[in-house]
């Protein structure tokens, strides 16, 4: 996890202080990034999707994928009972098999943070969505209050949404400033800070060029993680969008020495899909990203398929859905 305190650029980032100086410098920089050819990017993602992961590699990948899951419930109907059940599942995804690892985090609305915390303690991270999730349409002081509220309740990670309207209108400076401000609001009294994940809602940004630009924008503004989607808009995470983001974090680290995490969220339902993502992480960003510190899946239904496939590998048989807990 990054150790740099908020608002203090990492050494490599200082060289980028010029490009974030004002709106026009930021615009020039973002529009000067190499373009993304849609056909080529999609072909590359599809090609990586044909890697055949079997036996020992599959075993390893399934366990890693479980450890990378941000087990999520983000419904208006969420209740303390519901999130406590989810939290218990995060700790012990497969009660029948103690060797099964815990997931990375439980992701909930800010008002549910303390409920989750009371179940998982420090064993699993608690992530809270903030900043007027999922639309991001609220006054800035409300977004910041939303964030502080979740941090005070004990959230280890904050998943913020950007103002897509501002981004699409070309108000890059506004988006940049908002991320910087939210990052500051992630600070805790002891000087540490909650991990900031910035959600782009790539389904609304539409083009891969936009995805590359917004990735750089967020990284320059201090995001610890970049995340595809809220899960409330279709299409949510896709392989090509994640590919473009993985290229961005790879290039960003080469330019600044700063490593940023990636989290595809929404629509990843099967173990087979999850493994395709891991192959892409491995071949695009590199092995360094193949840990829950740097790559996460935002998902709810994915976990049970991972567990089912894991059991199949251990026992040689498929068991039915009744053998795995509801969330």
């Amino acid at each position, binding site marked *: 996890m990054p150790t740099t305190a908020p608002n203090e650029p990492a050494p490599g980032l200082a060289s980028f202080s010029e490009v974030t100086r004002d709106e026009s410098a930021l615009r020039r920089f973002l529009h000067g990034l*190499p*373009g*993304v*050819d849609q*056909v*080529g*990017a999609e*072909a*590359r993602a599809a090609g990586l999707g*044909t*890697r*055949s*992961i*079997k*036996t*020992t*590699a*599959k075993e*390893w*990948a399934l366990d890693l994928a479980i450890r990378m899951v941000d087990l999520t419930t983000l419904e208006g109907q969420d209740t303390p009972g519901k999130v406590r059940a989810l939290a218990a599942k995060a700790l012990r995804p497969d009660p029948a098999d103690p060797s099964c690892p815990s997931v990375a985090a439980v992701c909930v609305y800010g008002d549910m943070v303390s409920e989750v915390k009371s179940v998982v303690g420090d064993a699993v991270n608690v992530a809270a969505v903030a900043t007027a999730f999922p639309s991001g349409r609220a006054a800035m002081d409300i977004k910041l209050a939303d964030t502080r509220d979740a941090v005070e309740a004990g959230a280890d990670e904050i998943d913020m949404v950007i103002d897509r309207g501002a981004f699409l209108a070309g108000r890059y400076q506004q988006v940049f400033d908002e991320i910087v401000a939210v990052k500051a609001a992630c600070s805790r009294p002891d000087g540490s800070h909650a991990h900031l994940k910035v959600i782009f809602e790539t389904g609304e940004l539409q083009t891969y060029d936009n995805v590359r630009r917004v990735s750089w924008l967020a990284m320059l503004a201090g995001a610890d993680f970049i995340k595809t989607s809220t899960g409330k808009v279709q299409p949510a995470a896709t392989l090509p969008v994640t590919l473009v983001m993985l*290229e961005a974090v790879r290039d960003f680290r080469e330019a600044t020495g700063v490593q940023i995490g990636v989290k595809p969220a929404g629509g990843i339902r099967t173990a087979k899909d999850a493994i395709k993502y*891991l*192959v892409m992480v*491995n*071949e695009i960003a590199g*092995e360094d990203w*193949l840990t829950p510190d740097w790559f996460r899946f935002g998902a709810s239904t994915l976990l049970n398929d991972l567990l089912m496939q894991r059991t199949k590998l251990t026992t040689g048989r498929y068991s039915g859905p009744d053998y795995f807990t509801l969330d």
Partner: protein
Amino acid sequence: MAFEYAPAPESRSIVDIKPSYGLFVDGEFTDGNGAAFKTINPATEETLAEIAEADEADVDAAVKAARRAFRSWSRMPGRERAKYLFRIARILQERSRELAVLESIDNGKPIKESRDVDVPTVAAHFFYHAGWADKLDHAGLGPDPQPLGVAGQVIPWNFPLLMLAWKVAPALACGNTVVLKPAETTPLTALLFAEICQQADLPPGVVNIVTGAGATGQALVSHPDVDKVAFTGSTDVGKAIARAVAGSDKKVTLELGGKAANIVFEDAALDQAVEGIVGGIFFNQGHVCCAGSRLLVQESVAEEVLHRLKRRMSTLRVGDPLDKNTDVGAINSAEQLARITELSGIGDAEGADRWSPDCELPASGFWFPPTLFTGVTQAHRIAREEIFGPVLSVLTFRTPSEAIEKANNTPYGLSAGVWTEKGSRILHMADRLRAGVVWANTFNKFDPTSPFGGYQESGYGREGGRQGLAAYLKGGQA
């Protein structure tokens, strides 16, 4: 911990390789008069089967069978011929896994390429040409176009089954009959195709397959009763064929070598351009006549492109062609490996800088690592001669006109690639590049509807599309 992909080998039990194969003449397998030769698996050097060699008498028998079959096949209504072609196309699809595995075993190419590229494109060629068989009047090649007669076809080892499809499908659709000679190192899928012709109840003699090496090919192209010669292969052999048929009334198409320029401008989508460079030269181990073997990159981004390219090359997986995760397979033969090694050595001697990623090559079989040479100029032999292997020469340019001059400064002219986000530049370049195909922001894309062929020493005539039909019809301009 690293993500080690466990081996995922495709089962070879799906193919049944016989200990020996004869020639396919007049719908039957027969013994050849010549001495049998062996075909081996280039990834292991294991002998796969003994193959009959056809001598002049065998070739003559095959041409006679094709001539007899021509009388009825050419008079058959187009819609009837189409039925056979559709049937063959469907059988090719049904047996696609078997064909892909056999192709990879005999040729050394990765299963993912034979499975995802070769075999589907082969079926597509038969489907496409089946559609033409009853519509030749509407191809814009004149009213009531007529077939030429017997086509003598000689194909190379790099895409054994695909080149067969490029040759056989249009010939049959137009009402010709064929005698085809596959390359001596890769005859197995052509012989399996012969079985498919039997399975499709194709009338005897419409397709004949004679195996052998250069002498067999020579006997075929110079046979007096062959009306049309179609050859894909090296420029040297192409020239010899052109000499052999000069003065006869045989119609000829030649698809020969290439030294394609892959031109990357500073405003290109660099990650995708790198992907295109890799696909352009390392697809099929670089055994591609239209391979993008000369990378021309604008000086302003040369360093960055090279950095990205090397990083990407380091992820290429070289090894067992039957492993579904293999990206680069085996070199087809010891001779070809020697040629690649020799030309790369010349690159070193001329002062170019050689680079290859760390990759462990299997102990047996024929292997060459993905390689690039930097510091190459137009004066280097590796920038001029076709290496036909996984070896990329990197040159730079400063302006679009310099890129065009350098790209066109070659005896060849089969293909070219242009990488830029600027649409007007794509059109500007495509107008000026002397190459049969110019790909924009992609490379090595093949489609039966698209004519393929070259300029200068890359040969003449076109295959595929409406233009490809002309090569098999009287009066049609090939």
